[in-house]
């Protein structure tokens, strides 16, 4: 099943795109799995997710940890720690 990925701030700059539709393989079950799979897709992804520990994720616009399951996700976003206010 395809899922929409969104990238923000320096994650967006490093991947070179703001959003894309992807179809991850079946063994990609969690956010951490997805990051690992994305990193294998090219040097720009490798660079964007190099510091994977600091990258935050949201599934369907709700903050999640990297161990969250992505099975029912329609939209997954990756971004640096937020700096609003």
């Amino acid at each position, binding site marked *: 099943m395809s899922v929409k990925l969104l990238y923000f701030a320096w994650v967006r700059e490093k991947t070179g795109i703001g959003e894309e539709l992807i179809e991850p393989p079946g063994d990609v079950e969690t956010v951490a799995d997805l990051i690992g799979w994305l990193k294998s897709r090219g040097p720009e992804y490798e660079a964007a997710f190099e510091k994977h520990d600091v990258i935050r994720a949201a599934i369907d*616009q*709700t903050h999640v940890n990297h161990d969250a399951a992505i099975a029912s996700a329609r939209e997954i976003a990756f971004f640096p720690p*937020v700096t*609003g*206010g």
Partner: protein
Amino acid sequence: MIRVQAEDFDIGAEIERLRAERTDIGAIVTFTGTVRDVAPNSQGKGKPISQMTLEHYPGMTEKELERIERAANERWTLQASLIIHRYGPLKPGDNIVLVITASAHRHAAFEAAAFLMDYLKTSAPFWKMEEGAEGGDWVDARDSDDAALTRWDAAKKAAE
């Protein structure tokens, strides 16, 4: 109420709108965050800033601000609350964020305003890019912002 907008806001007008035709409010607290013209760099000196651009996650931003506002209203008895956050390119001196809280007595309004800002800082999906003569830098998140949340958790546990 929450608003996410590119346009500036008028603090006085927002206060007047919030209190219009009400006489049950005894205290109104406002917090305004503005763009500074200098950012600390790694050498500890200030880097001059000519522009700050705020990126955000449309949809999730509104959801998070509504969630934070709801949490404040569950925790304190507020007569009214308002969060306005801007996005897009801003200049030094420009307004970034406005929080207004109104309550019968001052403590709830003071505390709720600080709570809203502390949670907004760590969970609302905004990112600041500071631009100066040396180019642009994404602002790093501050550990002190995360630390600010622990006092609310501690206060809540103490109350339970």
